[in-house]
């Protein structure tokens, strides 16, 4: 008679310790090969520990709830023949009687834990724990079943050729979970394929429905060209600039009435006006009182350059991504000239014909998603500028005016400022000034 020690198997993924959640045997029990001895839990899954030998349980290596290190003794079993305990090895780590009494004391916990983990252990198969037996046998015997035993002794690395390792990485499979049928437990290409196929099969019922089919495909999209530029610009802006975002609602009823009037009167010959030219004009007027927002800030040189001219960037969606064509000297344009310029630039940007000049040199930027404008946005400043004004959706909303609920056309403005050079007070005053112009549109023209 010899003593066989079963150690806590390596569950993979760098897990160094597991919690013992249930014992299925007690000291003195006679166990058969493959009989489940205990359940252990990692933060990902519950795993069953089967017996690799037949014999009588001599000692349990821990109590329920105990956190045990991978490689520590789980159980000692008296077996026919030699066993794997060497003569000179230190005696058992846990006093048998003590362990036994503790298990008895914990019986209630044990039951609840066993009951609760039953379901998860079925699901855990996907995360793939592997049988002790060669995979070919296992797969044939219980196809698609959850395999919650382990294949390798603790500390043993999965052995696979470099090509198999590479394929496993490509597939996102941890080789630790793949049973190896090759000589000395080597994992072959076939083992890997069988494992992947089994993982696909072992999905919960209902997954045959294509609408809920699990998808493992992924696409790598190179971030290049304009996309990369946008990424860099955005990163640069967010990394360098402490954004301060201010949102205010604007009553657009008056301005909308004027816009409708102008479009009815002049729409045919001069072109239709959107809100944008009005906002552009409001900004042109507002920056006169707030030159600090119509500026570019060179933080390395610690110099903010304020501009008399208003070169208005208009964030524009194109096929390739976001572009910002620039209305040069917006202060010189009337509503229709501005509208025409916006149209021309947007077209140039979308068709890729915009020149470098038309795409650079802005001093302040407007961003608008039109009908998709939402309630609030947090615009990202077009670095090295210091302010960006965003337009939100224009909607009819009930408002209280002089104690009466009335329907007004309301629109929010969401604006961001570089808080290093624009104080909150200045930013607020600037937006309030724009609001003033928009709510009382006559002031846009009478100075």
């Amino acid at each position, binding site marked *: 008679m010899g003593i066989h020690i079963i150690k806590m198997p390596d569950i993979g993924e760098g897990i160094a310790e597991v919690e013992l959640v249930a014992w299925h045997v007690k000291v003195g029990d006679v166990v058969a090969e493959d009989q489940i001895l205990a359940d252990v839990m990692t933060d990902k899954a519950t795993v069953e520990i089967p017996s690799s030998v037949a014999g009588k349980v001599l000692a349990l290596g821990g109590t329920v709830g105990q956190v045990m290190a991978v490689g520590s003794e789980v159980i000692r079993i008296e077996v026919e023949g030699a066993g794997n305990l060497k003569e000179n090895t230190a005696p058992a780590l846990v006093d048998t009687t003590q362990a036994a009494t503790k298990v008895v004391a914990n019986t209630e916990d044990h039951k609840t834990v066993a009951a609760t983990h039953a379901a998860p252990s079925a699901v855990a198969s996907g995360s793939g724990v592997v049988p002790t037996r060669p995979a070919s046998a296992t797969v044939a015997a219980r196809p698609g079943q959850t395999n919650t035993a382990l294949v390798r002794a603790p500390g043993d690395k999965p052995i696979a050729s470099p090509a198999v390792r590479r394929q496993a*990485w490509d597939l996102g499979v941890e080789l630790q979970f793949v049973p190896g049928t090759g*000589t000395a437990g080597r994992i072959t290409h076939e083992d890997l394929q069988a494992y992947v196929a089994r993982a696909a099969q072992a999905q919960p019922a209902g997954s045959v429905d294509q609408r809920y089919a699990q998808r493992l495909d992924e696409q790598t999209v190179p971030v290049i060209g304009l996309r990369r530029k946008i990424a860099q610009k955005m990163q640069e802006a967010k990394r360098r600039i402490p954004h301060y975002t201010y949102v205010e609602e604007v009553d657009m009823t008056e301005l909308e009435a004027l816009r409708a009037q102008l479009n009815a009167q002049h729409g045919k010959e001069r072109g239709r006006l959107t809100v944008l030219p009005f906002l552009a004009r409001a900004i042109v007027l507002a920056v006169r009182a707030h030159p600090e927002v119509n500026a570019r800030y060179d933080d390395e040189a610690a110099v903010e350059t304020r501009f008399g001219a208003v070169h208005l960037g208009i964030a524009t969606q194109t096929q390739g991504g976001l572009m910002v064509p620039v209305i040069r000297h917006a202060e010189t344009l009337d509503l229709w000239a501005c509208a025409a310029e916006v149209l021309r630039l947007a077209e140039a940007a979308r068709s890729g014909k915009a020149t470098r000049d038309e795409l650079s040199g802005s001093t302040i930027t407007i961003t608008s998603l039109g009908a998709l404008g939402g309630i609030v946005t947090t615009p990202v400043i077009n670095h090295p500028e210091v302010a960006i004004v965003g337009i939100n959706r224009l909607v009819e909303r009930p408002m209280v005016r002089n104690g009466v609920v009335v329907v007004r056309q309301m629109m929010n403005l969401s604006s961001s400022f570089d808080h290093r050079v624009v104080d909150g007070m200045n930013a607020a005053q600037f937006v309030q000034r724009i609001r003033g112009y928009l709510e009382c549109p006559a002031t846009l023209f009478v100075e």
Partner: protein
Amino acid sequence: MDIQHTTLLVIGGGPGGYITAIRAAQLGIATTLIEGEQLGGTCLNIGCIPSKALILAAEAYHQAHHFMGDSTLGIHVEGARIDIAQTVRWKDGIVARLTGGVGALLKKHGVKVVKGWATIVDGKTVDVARDPADPQPVRIQGEHMVLATGSVELGLPGMPFGGSVISSTQALSPERIPGKLVVVGGGYIGLELGLVYRKLGADVSLVEAQNHILPLYDEELTKPVAASLRKLGVQVHLGSTVQGLNAAGDAVRVQDSTGRESELAADQVLVAIGRVPRTHGWGLEKLMLAMQGRALKVDDQCRTSMRNVWAIGDLTGEPMLAHRAMAQGEMVAEIISGKRRHFAPAAIAAVCFTDPEIVVAGQSPADAAKAGLDCITAQFPFAANGRAMTLEASDGFVRVVARRDNHRIVGWQAVGVAVSELGTAFSHSLEMGATLEDVAGTIHAHPTLGEAVQEAALRALGHALHI
């Protein structure tokens, strides 16, 4: 300041750096490589390659000298001489061909090579001083940065490099062979170069603090090397530490393990006590990266503690081997291109080009025992190998270490003339997870040294044929 942009910025053009750049370029990543000296790094310029060239020259000269006496081969040579200046020119020619080749490869793949010393500005940016006279550096910004700055020679605190105290770099370009050379350090660098100088005619003394040469290898493996040192007349002082030069500067003061001091006369002192990661002098400290001892700490994907900053090669510590750096570099380039990779080799072979050579891959018997593996070990001596005899090189052996339970091979070691080439077979069998039966069942060409590999496996299985 004008900023150049790239996707991948590689700092250092040694084996790790240039392989990273080539692989990245193959994968379509815009890559800039910065190198302050010649491409090829320590390996091509002042390490592996030039030392191997000198080893060949020294051995050939030594052979010729040997043939001036009584030769069992019946060859007689008269008046063998060496023109060391020509030898160094020849070595420099090989180095130039190789470094030029690296430059051509980089160019072919479209890697932008910037010549100059990089200084880190932040985790994505470096300033490159191209010319010490030009104070305005070039600023280059990359989305990814691979740090591959290699290592530097470690000096002795009490005996800095300069004058008669030379480093391995200087030892590889001798103007003349000194009459008396003291080598400090019995590792592979000290031994390789000590043997070169001995064979070129210098009186060589070797001082090693530990109690045996090549302290990283077991004594069985180093015994044939120790025997060869004795035979060649290299005086070996083990368990001894160097105290510094004497007042006249013509001898090294050495203290042995009993505390007794003596002086070893020296025209030159070669300090070869090891190499340390090059972590200073280029602004690395600005990134505040996690360290592991003197090396940069990296995970199994060569990621440092800062996102998109990677480190490979000697900078990441032991083993400081060119082939490790190259494999890491290739992997990092692939990860950056979006592939899933890990640095998980089964083994990294290491070679000492001593006389005789030593090659190891995987676990030694002691390593395996420490890891708790129950292993079989078997040796096959070259004395029983026909090819070794025809090479006049029957010293040494091949040793295999395999698990007793499933016979999977976990390590190989060999010592003998020209055994470095066996490293290929060793690594291959370890990476493939071969068992003793796999190697024993492979026909090895006759007559070659490789037959000893097969025979070692057979012997482990209990049925070697030639012993």
